[in-house]
């Protein structure tokens, strides 16, 4: 397997709705910015991997077909990846494999979503239709007819965790403080959907229940329209591009993935509902491939669909003990970006978690959210000279899809 590096990244502004652009324009904008960042033309890109989660949102059964020419990928191989909330992660994994295998030297990975063109005629608003479209990710026989939604599915898993490990994710003060920190991170991200917002602990605790008692309105990710693109290159190509850009390559040091069974149950291969085993297995595989341990990593861009889930995920990724993830706040492990200069690295015992603002404040355009996380992780690693970082993705019913990618800043790579 060949060494693979990130040489360019571009994202669009994250918005609740883009009336000024369709997904054609959003994908092109992200691609254009990634090419500008890598100082490459589309002629240098050998192939493309698309992350597009849901045909219904784009309102086209083969949405990538209409993008091909518009993003300069005519007559090149193109693969579409769709894996629920983890679509972005799996699209990047596919792109990395394509370079690592030697099939391509330089691959564009672009993903995005146009969700809020959906409209519910009865409530005369978008949200119930967006929820319903995502709910179509559940099977039509057993789960969808019961009213399954992404929120209740993730909260079912959080409740299972709380049944087993009481007193951890159930403290609303801890969760609200995490939200406050994520808000401060979002304020620093020029592309974040909620970059202008100021959310306090008290506001989080006073916001409405979505699913009691673990999910209030201000504890959830948003529906976002946007796109993100990453350019992956082989070692030789990456070094050549780094000469042009003056930016160090960020290497993919290890990548791991795991999908749990759809059905929850006891024993066998059934999904245990009180853990996110997919996160744990994926991270262990990524650490093993990279030859690192969680204590070597200071920056994480994790998929925070909901803050209670983020706490469990941080436990599964090995940064805090399962059952005691509240240590992130109780012991000051999760840094508030306000306490750190923009070029400063976290100190011992500290972690920079979702400096982009995460999916909660940054944005969640499902097919490209993990590219958004990767864009941020790379940016922060370069700006702060942090040697190792972790990008995480999760998705599907009861958080049963998981992925993790260890990034490494090039040794010789000064800014």
């Amino acid at each position: 397997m060949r060494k693979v590096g990130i040489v360019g990244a571009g994202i669009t502004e994250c918005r609740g709705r883009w009336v000024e652009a369709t997904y054609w324009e959003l994908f092109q904008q992200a691609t254009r910015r990634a090419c500008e960042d890598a100082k490459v033309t589309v002629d240098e890109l050998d192939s493309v991997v698309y992350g597009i989660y849901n045909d219904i949102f784009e309102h086209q059964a083969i949405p990538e077909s209409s993008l091909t020419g518009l993003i300069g990928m005519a007559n090149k191989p193109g693969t579409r990846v769709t894996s629920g909330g983890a679509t972005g992660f799996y699209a990047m994994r596919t792109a990395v494999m394509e370079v690592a295998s030697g099939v391509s030297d330089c691959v564009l990975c672009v993903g995005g979503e146009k969700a809020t063109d959906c409209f519910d005629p009865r409530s005369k608003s978008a949200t119930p239709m967006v929820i319903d479209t995502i709910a179509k990710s559940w099977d039509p026989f057993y789960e969808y007819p019961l009213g399954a939604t992404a929120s209740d599915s993730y909260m079912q898993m959080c409740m299972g965790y709380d049944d087993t490990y009481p007193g951890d994710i159930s403290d609303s003060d801890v969760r609200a403080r995490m939200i406050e920190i994520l808000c401060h991170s979002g304020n620093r991200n020029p592309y974040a959907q909620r970059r202008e917002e100021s959310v306090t602990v008290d506001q989080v605790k006073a916001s409405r229940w979505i699913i009691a008692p673990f999910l209030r309105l201000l504890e959830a990710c948003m529906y976002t329209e946007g796109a993100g693109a990453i350019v992956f290159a082989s070692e030789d190509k990456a070094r050549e591009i780094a000469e042009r850009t003056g930016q160090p390559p960020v290497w993919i040091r290890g990548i791991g993935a795991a999908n749990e069974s759809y059905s929850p149950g006891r024993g066998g291969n059934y999904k245990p509902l009180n853990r996110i085993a997919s996160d744990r297995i994926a991270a262990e595989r990524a650490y093993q491939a990279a030859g690192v341990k969680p204590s070597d990593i200071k920056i994480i861009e994790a998929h925070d669909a909901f803050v209670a889930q983020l706490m469990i995920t941080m436990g599964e990724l090995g940064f805090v003990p399962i059952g005691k993830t509240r240590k992130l706040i109780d012991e000051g492990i999760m840094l508030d970006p306000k306490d750190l200069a923009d070029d400063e690295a976290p100190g011992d015992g500290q972690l920079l978690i979702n400096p982009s603002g995460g999916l909660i404040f940054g944005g969640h355009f499902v097919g490209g959210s993990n590219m958004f996380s990767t864009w941020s992780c790379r940016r922060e690693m370069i700006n702060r000279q942090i040697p190792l970082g972790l990008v995480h993705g999760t998705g599907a019913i009861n958080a049963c899809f998981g992925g993790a990618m260890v990034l490494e800043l090039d040794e010789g790579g000064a800014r």
Partner: protein
Amino acid sequence: MTIPKGQPALPVDFNLESEVSEIEGRDGETYLQFTTHMVTFYKQTYGEHSRFFMALRDGRLIGAHCSQCKQVMVPAATWHCPNCNFAEMTEIDLPHRGVLAYTAPITIFPSASFLGDAPFARGYVDVATEAPIASFLPSRLRTTTGLERPGIFVKGIELKLVFEDERQGSIRDIFWVPMTEVPQGLRDKKPLLASELDFTTPEPPAVHKDAVKAAALKEAIAAMRKLAGDVGKSRRAQADLAGHEHLVGVNTGGGDFSISVADSRFSIVEGLSAGAEHTLVADDPEIFTRWVHDGSLTDAAVEGTLWLPHKEAFQLLPILDRLPRSTRRDLRDEKK
């Protein structure tokens, strides 16, 4: 989302007028948007799942059993064991009682297809408790004590399987209720039908009247009337109320009042109005002051401080909850 037999598969009001309309972008420019849809109808086969749903129609719950690993799969999602090199599985009858595998979430804001059903509970039931390996059945959970609320469906409670009286072959043909709510004589009945349990209006809670609550109610009524006045100046709030017509009584520890919704406005009437659709109960009238100041009646209902007689009474609450925000946004825009 139970569509009665013979009704259109797509509800008739689930539609939009065809049009191309203008919409302003953030850049101040005008853009166009067009009405369209992506509806596909199906006559979707249940295929290998048909046996499971035919059993439900017959008042039976079945699973697939593997003689090698002894696992029980319910629902019978396959008849070939994925654990044992796809060995053939056999049909077994399952008990009509089970255990809630984990505390269940209560959905308050449902998807478009389930508007009107909230709040509802969905959880996973461990039915084949004797089997060493078993799947959990995705299940609808109901209570005979009123609305589904947190604290009822907690991990480990024993549940009784209930069948709808009229069944068509759907996972919604069945639901589970806490065993403690089932009269002793019915606990072993197979199948137990929904009509054999009492889901009618439960007894409302008693309120304790005192002078402090009377003063709190006075304050709440003044706050609500101020909000009602603001709704008269708010396009967004009027849009929230458009098409809704209700007269609802409220019994509190500080006295009674009624909320009237009509013609895209709402008003507060002191006392319980004759002809009220139903009566809500809240010992503490302050929840209505909190509502006006960006609190939430929905939260009060979920937390149990606002008692509702039935699910239909819940449907107005998210609409009322929008009013403080809508009026504030319009009044703020006006000031700009």
